[in-house]
């Protein structure tokens, strides 16, 4: 029981101090594994990352459920995940209230007009890296990939998908339906 409490506390700290997306929680998990090798080893962690990346859901949440389940069973997986999200829940609730109160303030509106524009830049850069990961299979790392990794079939599928989802009557189709079709095409074409 005390081990369960301890791992929940560790995930609470992770939720409080990890900022940003994707693998932001990973360094905290590596530290946990160093201090508590009986919970999970580094090679267990590598497997957890692989599974968290190939299942739906936010990476950080997937990682915490897996680590909690792996070390403390079903209850462990549920409690570590709830511990991970509790601090951000409180912080976001407070910021959200402040934002609701001041969002019509002129200065706040000016700041957000600029932040919103910057967010568009962030979105396009995320789009860019997702595009690279999708169309340059085998390329790992950041920055520009070499042309050797470029796959014409993947690019053609991307272009066809983009054109189809922008045709007027097809715009209404739910993104989830496109994702499901993508999975089927992936299996059929062995992507």
């Amino acid at each position, binding site marked *: 029981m005390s081990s369960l409490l301890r791992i929940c506390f560790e995930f609470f700290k992770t939720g409080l*101090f990890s900022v940003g997306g994707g693998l932001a929680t990973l360094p905290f998990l590596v530290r946990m594994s160093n201090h508590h090798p009986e919970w999970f080893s580094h090679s267990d962690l590598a497997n957890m990352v692989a599974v968290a990346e*190939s299942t739906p859901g936010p*990476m*950080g949440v997937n990682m915490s459920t897996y680590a909690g389940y792996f070390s403390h069973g079903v209850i462990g997986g549920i409690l570590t*995940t709830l511990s991970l999200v509790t601090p951000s829940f409180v912080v976001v609730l407070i910021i959200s209230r402040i934002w609701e109160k001041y969002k019509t303030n002129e200065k706040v509106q000016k700041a957000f007009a*600029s932040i919103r*524009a910057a*967010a568009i830049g962030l979105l396009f850069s995320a789009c860019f890296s997702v595009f690279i990961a999708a169309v340059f299979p085998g390329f790992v790392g950041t920055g520009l990939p070499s042309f050797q990794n470029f796959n014409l079939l993947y690019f053609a599928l991307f272009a066809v998908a983009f054109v189809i989802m922008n045709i007027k009557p097809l715009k209404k189709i739910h*993104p989830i339906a496109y994702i499901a079709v993508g999975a089927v095409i*992936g299996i059929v074409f062995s992507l």
Partner: protein
Amino acid sequence: MKRLFELFFTFFKIGLFTFGGGYAMLPIIEREVVDKHNWSTKEEVLDIFSMSQCTPGVIAVNSATFIGNKTKGFFGALFSTLGVVTPSIIIITIIAAFFSNFAENEYVIHAFGGVRIVVAALILRTCINMFKSAIKSSVQLGVAIASFLMVAFFGASPIIIVIVSGLFGLFFIKLPKEEEAKSNV
């Protein structure tokens, strides 16, 4: 009460079909939260997304808490947050218990190859939609381009980008007339 369950199931769907983290959820948020339920505008989703990058915790979960609170207060936030994490808890527990070599399965790998391509196209479409509704002046266009270049080619942290662009906006952004009128109310 009905609204709380709507929030739970909407974010359950979002958690269930988000492949690859925060940004991948945006096309589904756009469809469910903006188009279908009108809980937020595209601009508000961008604001919430920016704040979610800078607050501690998982971006997708933070966005759910923000939107839930905006829609139905504390309990809205609670139901949305639980909704977005529940699919992960169920799926990961099943996979960890029965299919520990899931990630090496060749069908999973191929399906993911296809999903990545479709998600890239969906994100691009959402990017373009958001661009159209958020960029209204040449100053904003400049901020967007600068932020893209800084992150895509110089590896700048999104947190720094949000803080710097916010300060920039305080001094250099002029609000269009209608927004000025709104802010004086």
